[in-house]
C-alpha cells in the first residue's frame, strides 16, 4: 500500500524561483544529496535526511543558469550551463563558480542528462546529442541540427536499457508532438509522431516515462485531466521511416482540466503514479498517488499554498515547490495486496466470519513476520521444524485436536488431548492449548449439556493457562459448582481477580458436606487430623504457652477476667476442626491465592454471616495449631502460613465486624480469639525484652572488630 509520509521543508529560504518554478532537482553522486537549481543564478546541494544545504554556488550577476545542474556520476563533479552556451564543471571543494572549469560551446544547450553508470550527455536545442567527454575534447565543434525549425524540445528523459543508454525527447510544433528516441549503441535516431486519437483539441501538460524490456511507456497528462499512455518501441524495425504512434487512455479525469496552475505527473513504479494538480476545478492543489492497474486513488495530500506544477521523484522522495519553499514528501510503497489495492475504502470486518482467538506464542517467533523481515529464517527454527515433520507424518495432532474439539464427543476429545499432551515439545504448544481451551469453553456455552471436565482439568494442569487467557473457564466452573476445578484454577492461575476469588470462597463455604464428599479434592495442604488424642496433648501445651505470663497479675479489666474464667472447656471446643478436611483443603486454596486488600474487602461483605463465622472458626483453629510449635508453622506439605492466616482473620473482621458482633453464635468465638491474641501480644512483648539484651551482645561483637589506633597483641604462628 502506498503512503505519503509527513512532509518537510527543505529550505525555507525563498529561492528565486519565479513563477516558472525551479529549473530542476537532480540527484548527486551521494545517495541522500540533491542538486537544486533555481530559476536564476544559484545551485544548491541539499542533504535531505539532515534537511540542510551542504553547499551553494552562484554564477555572476548578469549571467543566468539556463539548464539544471547535474552530477557526473563517474567523477562526482557537477555540471551546469549558463547563458545557454557556457558549460561549467566543478566539485564540492570549489567555492566560486567563476573560477572553475569553463567551456564555451558553439550551440545552445537544452539539457544535460546524467544517470548512474554512464557519462553525461548534452542535448542541444537543435536536437543534437553529444557525450560530455567528446564535447569537452573539442568544445567549439560543429553541432548539427536535427529537429526542424519551429520545433521546441518539451521534455526529455535518459534511460539505461540493457546497459545501453537510451535518450527520449518530445518536441512540439504547432500543437503536434513528436517523440525522438536516440539509441547510443547503434547511434540510431528514430522519430515518431504522437497522435491524439479521438480527443484532438487537448494540450499535453506533462510527460513521464518508464521503461520495460521492449517499450518505453510514455505517459502524458492532458489538459482534459486524463492520463494517456503511448508505447514506444525501443528497437525500431525500420529506423528511417517516420512512424505515428497512437496514445491510449489510461484513466480518466485525474485532475480537473482547467486549472490555472500547472499539473505534473511522475511514474513512481510499475503500478503507481503521482499526480500533482487540483482534483476539482475549485479545490486546492493536491498531490495524489494512483494505482494504475486498479485505477484507484491510494493517498493524497493537500498542498494549500499552491505549487509550481513541477514534481520530481528520486529514491523515496517526492520534491515539489509548495508555496515558496522546496518541500520533500517521503513516499513509501509496500508490496500491495489485492485488499490494499482496493484503495482507501474502509474495509470493515465481515460480521459473519468467525474470528479465531489468536494467542501469541512467545516461544517461537511469529512466522509471517519473520519471513517478511528476514528472508532466511534462523537455522535453529529450521531444524526444529524438521523434527516436527518427522514426528508428525500426516495431520499434526494440534490441528486434529482443534477439529475434534469443535465436533466430537467428550470421550473422543479426551483421547485426542492425551495424545497431544504426550508429545509436549511442539513449538506451538502454548497456542494450541489456548485455542483448545477457548474452543471447549465456547462449545460449553453453546451446548449446556457439554462439560468436558476431565479435559479442562488436564488443560489447567499444563501450567500454561492463566485467568486472563480464559476467563470463561472459572465462570463455567462456578456455574457448575465444580470445586475441584476451581481448586486447580486457584492453584495454577496467577491472576485471578478478587471478585472471582470471593465467589469461589462463597461456594466453598456454602457447598453441602455430602456433595463435597463425592468430589476428589487435592488434600495436600491439609494436615492429618486423625490423631486427635495427640491434639489433646498439644492443647495442654498451648495452655502452658499461654501461661508464659501470668494472666492474673495482668492488670486487665473485668471483662477480661470473666473471659479467663473457664478457658479450658472453651478451647477444647474450638480445637476440633470446624470443617471437614475436604472443605479445609478448598479453603486453604483460597488462603494461598494472591489478592489485594482494597479490592477484596468489598466482596467479602457479600458473604453471609454464618459462612463468615465458619471461616473465622476455621482460621482460629489454624491459628491455634500454628502456635502449637515453636516455628509457628502447620504440619503438612503445603500448609497455609501464619501470615496468610493472620491476614485473612484481619480481612474478615475488617469486612464483617459489625455483623459478626451481632451474632450470638459468634460471640464465643470472638471472645476466644481476643483472649488468644492478647496472650500472644504479652508473649511477644516478653520476647522483645530478651531481644534487646541480645542486641547488646551484637554490639560487643562489633567493637571487637573495630580496634583503636594502637594495640599490643599476641600473634601465634604455627
Amino acid at each position: 500500500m502506498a503512503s505519503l509520509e509527513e512532509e518537510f521543508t527543505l529550505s525555507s529560504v525563498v529561492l528565486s524561483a519565479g513563477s516558472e518554478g525551479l529549473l530542476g532537482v537532480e540527484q548527486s553522486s551521494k545517495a541522500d544529496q540533491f542538486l537544486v537549481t533555481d530559476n536564476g543564478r544559484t545551485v544548491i546541494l541539499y542533504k535531505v535526511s539532515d534537511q540542510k544545504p551542504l553547499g551553494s554556488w552562484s554564477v555572476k550577476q548578469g549571467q543566468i543558469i539556463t539548464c539544471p545542474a547535474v552530477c557526473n556520476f563517474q567523477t562526482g563533479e557537477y555540471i551546469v550551463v549558463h547563458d545557454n552556451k557556457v558549460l561549467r564543471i566543478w566539485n564540492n571543494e570549489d567555492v566560486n563558480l567563476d573560477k572553475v572549469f569553463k567551456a564555451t560551446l558553439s550551440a545552445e544547450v537544452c539539457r544535460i542528462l546524467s544517470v548512474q553508470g554512464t557519462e553525461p550527455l548534452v542535448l542541444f536545442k537543435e536536437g543534437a546529442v553529444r557525450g560530455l567527454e567528446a564535447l569537452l575534447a573539442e568544445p567549439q565543434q560543429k553541432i548539427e541540427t536535427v529537429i526542424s525549425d519551429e520545433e521546441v524540445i518539451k521534455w526529455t528523459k535518459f534511460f539505461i536499457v540493457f546497459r545501453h543508454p537510451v535518450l527520449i525527447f518530445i518536441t512540439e510544433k504547432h500543437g503536434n508532438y513528436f517523440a525522438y528516441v536516440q539509441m547510443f549503441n547503434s547511434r540510431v535516431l528514430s522519430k515518431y509522431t504522437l497522435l491524439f486519437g479521438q480527443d484532438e483539441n487537448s494540450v499535453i501538460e506533462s510527460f513521464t516515462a518508464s521503461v520495460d524490456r521492449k517499450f518505453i511507456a510514455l505517459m502524458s497528462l492532458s489538459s482534459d485531466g486524463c492520463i494517456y499512455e503511448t508505447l514506444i518501441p525501443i528497437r525500431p524495425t525500420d529506423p528511417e521511416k517516420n512512424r505515428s504512434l497512437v496514445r491510449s487512455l489510461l484513466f480518466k479525469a485525474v485532475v480537473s482540466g482547467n486549472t490555472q496552475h500547472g499539473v505534473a505527473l511522475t511514474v513512481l513504479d510499475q503500478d503507481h503514479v503521482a499526480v500533482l494538480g487540483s482534483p476539482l476545478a475549485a479545490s486546492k492543489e493536491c498531490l495524489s498517488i494512483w494505482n494504475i492497474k486498479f485505477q484507484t486513488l491510494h493517498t493524497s495530500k493537500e498542498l494549500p499554498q499552491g505549487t509550481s506544477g513541477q514534481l520530481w521523484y528520486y529514491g523515496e522522495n517526492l520534491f515539489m515547490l509548495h508555496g515558496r519553499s522546496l518541500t520533500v514528501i517521503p513516499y513509501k510503497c509496500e508490496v500491495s495486496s489485492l485488499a490494499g489495492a482496493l484503495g482507501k475504502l474502509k474495509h470493515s470486518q465481515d460480521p459473519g466470519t468467525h474470528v479465531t482467538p489468536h494467542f501469541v506464542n512467545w516461544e517461537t517467533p511469529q512466522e509471517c513476520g519473520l519471513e517478511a523481515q528476514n528472508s532466511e529464517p534462523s537455522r535453529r527454527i529450521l531444524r526444529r521444524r524438521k523434527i516436527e515433520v518427522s514426528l508428525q507424518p500426516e495431520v499434526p495432532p494440534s490441528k486434529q485436536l482443534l477439529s475434534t474439539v469443535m465436533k466430537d464427543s467428550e470421550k473422543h476429545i479426551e483421547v485426542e488431548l492425551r495424545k497431544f499432551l504426550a508429545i509436549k515439545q511442539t513449538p506451538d504448544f502454548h497456542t494450541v492449548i489456548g485455542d483448545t481451551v477457548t474452543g471447549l469453553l465456547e462449545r460449553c456455552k453453546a451446548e449446556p449439556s457439554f462439560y468436558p471436565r476431565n479435559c479442562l482439568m488436564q488443560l489447567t494442569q499444563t501450567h500454561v493457562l492463566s485467568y486472563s487467557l480464559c476467563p470463561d473457564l472459572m465462570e463455567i466452573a462456578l456455574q457448575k459448582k465444580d470445586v475441584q476445578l476451581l481448586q486447580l484454577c486457584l492453584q495454577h492461575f496467577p491472576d485471578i481477580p478478587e471478585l472471582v476469588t470471593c465467589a469461589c470462597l462463597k461456594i466453598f463455604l456454602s457447598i453441602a458436606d455430602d456433595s463435597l464428599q463425592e468430589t476428589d479434592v487435592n488434600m495436600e495442604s491439609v494436615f492429618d487430623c486423625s490423631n486427635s488424642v495427640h491434639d489433646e496433648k498439644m492443647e495442654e501445651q498451648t495452655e502452658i504457652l499461654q501461661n508464659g505470663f501470668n494472666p492474673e497479675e495482668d492488670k486487665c479489666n473485668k471483662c477480661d477476667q470473666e473471659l479467663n474464667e473457664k478457658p479450658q472447656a472453651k478451647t477444647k471446643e474450638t480445637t476440633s476442626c470446624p470443617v471437614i478436611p475436604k472443605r479445609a483443603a478448598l479453603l486453604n486454596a483460597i488462603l494461598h491465592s494472591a489478592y489485594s486488600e482494597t479490592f477484596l474487602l468489598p466482596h467479602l461483605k457479600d458473604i453471609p454471616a454464618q459462612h463468615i463465622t465458619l471461616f473465622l472458626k476455621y482460621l482460629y483453629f489454624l491459628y491455634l495449631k500454628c502456635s502449637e510449635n515453636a516455628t509457628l508453622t502447620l504440619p503438612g506439605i503445603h500448609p497455609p502460613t501464619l501470615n496468610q492466616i493472620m491476614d485473612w482473620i484481619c480481612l474478615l473482621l475488617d469486612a464483617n465486624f459489625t455483623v459478626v458482633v451481632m451474632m450470638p453464635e459468634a460471640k464465643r468465638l470472638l471472645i476466644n480469639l481476643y483472649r488468644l491474641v492478647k496472650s500472644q501480644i504479652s508473649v511477644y512483648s516478653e520476647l522483645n525484652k530478651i531481644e534487646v539484651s541480645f542486641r547488646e551482645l551484637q554490639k560487643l561483637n562489633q567493637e571487637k572488630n573495630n580496634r583503636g589506633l594502637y594495640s599490643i597483641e599476641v600473634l601465634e604462628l604455627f
Partner: protein
Amino acid sequence: MGEFKVHRVRFFNYVPSAIRCVAYNNHSNRLAVSRTDGTVEIYNLSANYFQEKFFPGHESRATEALCWAEGQRLFSAGLNGEIIEYDLQALKIKYAMDAFGGPIWSMAASPSGSQLLIGCEDGSVKLFQITPDKIQFERNFDRQKSRILSLSWHPSGTHIAAGSIDYISVFDVKSGSAVRKMIVDRQYMGVSKRKCIVWGVAFLSDGTIISVDSAGKVQFWDSATGTLVKSHLIANADVQSIAVANQEDSFVVGTAEGTVFHFQLVPVTSNSSEKQWVRTKPFQHHTHDVRTVAHSPTSLISGGTDTHLVIRPLMEKLEVKNYDAALRKITFPHRRLISCSRKRQLLLFQFAHHLELWRLGSTVATGKMGDPENIICSCISPCGSWIAYSTASRFFLYRLNYEHDNISLKRVSKMPAFLRSALQILFSEDSTKLFVASNQGTLHIVQLSGGSFKHLHAFQPQSGTVEAMCLLAVSPDGNWLAASGTSAGVHLHCTVPAYNFPVTAMAIAPNTNNLVIAHSDQQVFEYSIPDKHYTDWSRTVQKHGFHHLWLQRDTPITHISFHPKRPMHILLHDAYMFCIIDKSLPLPNDKTLLYNPFPPTNESDVVQRRTAHAFKISKIYKPLLFMDLLDERTLVAVERPLDDIIAQLPPPIKKKKFGT
C-alpha cells in the same frame, strides 16, 4: 612455630592522592599514572602490575594530561602551563617547557608519535614537534573562545577533534583551521541550566567523533557533516573520561558516579555486517569520580578520586583464564614508606610532604616541612640517632638527640654537592655508614661519626648505563652492599644472574650473607654472596615450585627481614599477609593447605609434623604496609585500614537509593 608480641599500629595517617590521568603504552605494556599531587607512577603490566618507577610530585605541578609519544617517551602537562618530559632511565624530570598558553588542560600525541598537541586555557591548540632530545613549538591552530579540555587525533593524523565548553571543534592539521564546530546540547535532565563541558573526545578512523560531557551524555558525531548521530544518556553526573581500544571495536567511559561503562561495536543482528555501538557492561568499582580511563588490548583501566587504580580484564579478550583474568585494585604504593629503629623502637612514617617519628608506646615528635616538593625516600638509622630523607632536588640529614623523653632535632648542614637527590637511602646496621643511591646511578657511601660525616666512596655506574638504583640492601656485618635498578638486575660487587621480573624487595641475611630477593612474579630467590651462586635451598624451591596460591597473590612483597636467633627463618610480607619461611621444613605442594588459620588442636605429633610446611602465614593484619622484627619476640605491624582512607576522601556524589 612461635609466639610474638605484636605492636599493631593504625595511626599511620596515610592517604594516597587521587588519580588524575592514566596513559597506557602498547609497545612496552606499561601504564603511566599521574596523581593530583603531581606524582607519576609507571606500572609494568607484564610484570604482575608492579609499580616499577615513580617520579615525585611537586605542589605547583598539577598534572592534567599524560601521554606516551615516540614509543617510550613520557610527557605530562599541567595547570602550571608546562610540558614535562620524564627521563625513564634516570628517574628524573628531563626538562620542563612553558607552552605560553596558560594552564594546559589536555595533550595528545599524534598517531605517528612525532607530534604533540596541547590544549590550553586561552583556547589555543598548539602543535609541538618531538625532536630526539626535546620538543619544539611548531604552530598554533585557530584560537577558540574557551579552554580546550580534550583532544583527539584522527588515526590518519590529518584532523583533530578538540572538546571545549559547549562545543567540539574539528581542525585540519595541515591548515590549522577549524573545519567543523559541533554544538553540544546543554540540556541537563531536561533543563538547560549550566555550561556543558566536553570532558573527552575520541576520533575514530571512520570519521566518527565520540564525546563525553558534563551533562552525562556519550554522543556520536559525524565529523564530515558535523551532525549528531547518536546520543546515550548514561549518568546523572558528569562523564569525565573516555578511552578507545586500538581496534576501535570497543571503548570505555568513566562517570562522576564512579561507574565505568563499556561500549562495544556489535553487529545489529547475528551474522549481519552492519554494526552499531552498544553499551554493554557497567562496572562499579569506584566510589568516587572516575577521572580517567584507559583501554589496553585485554583490560579496562580506571582511576579517580577514590585513589584506587582498577584494572578490569575483559574476559572475552583473554585466551587463558589464569590469574591475570582477575580484577586488580591497586591502592598502596609498591614501596616502603616506613622505616624503623629497632634499638629505640621508633617508627618513621613518610608522607608526601612531611615525616612523622613515633616511639612505640608514646607519641614523640612530628617533623613538618614546608617544602613544596614531595619526599622521595626516607630512612631512620637502626640506632635511632639519624634521619635522612630526600626530595627531588635536596638531600637532608638530621641528628637526633635524646634527653630522657625529649628529643631534639639538629640538621646536618653543608651537605656535599653530589648529594643532591636520592632515590634510596640506607643506614648500615651499626649506623656508622650511610648509603645513598643517587639518580645518576651512582652509589655514595658516607661515614657518620658523632655529628659529622665523611664521604668514603662512590660506586660509579657501569659505563654507558644511567639506570637508577631503587633498592638497596646491606649486610649486617657491613661488608656487602646490594643494589637493584628499575629493570630486573641486581648488582653487588658482582651481578646476580638476570631475571626477567623486577625486584620488589631484597635483604642480606646475617652471618651467612645470603641475599634474599623477591620478584614481582612472587618468586623468591636466595643467593649466597660469598659463594656467588644460588643456595641449595633456593634451587630446591625452584625445582619444587611455589604453591599456586602463593603465586596468585596480587601484591608484591615489600619488605624482607631476618630473625637474629633463628637463621633458618625469613620474614616477609605483602599488603595482605605476613609470612615466615622456615627453610628447615618441607615445602608445600599444591595439594596441601597453604594458609591454615586455625591452631592445631590436640592432634598427635605425627599428624602435625606431616602437615607442617615451610610457609607460616598470618592474614590478620591487612592492609599491611610494614612489618618488622623489633627484637626476638616482638613484631611491629603498621596497618592502614581502607575505611580510614575513605573517611578522609571528599564525599562522593550522593545517589538516591530506594527507600532513603
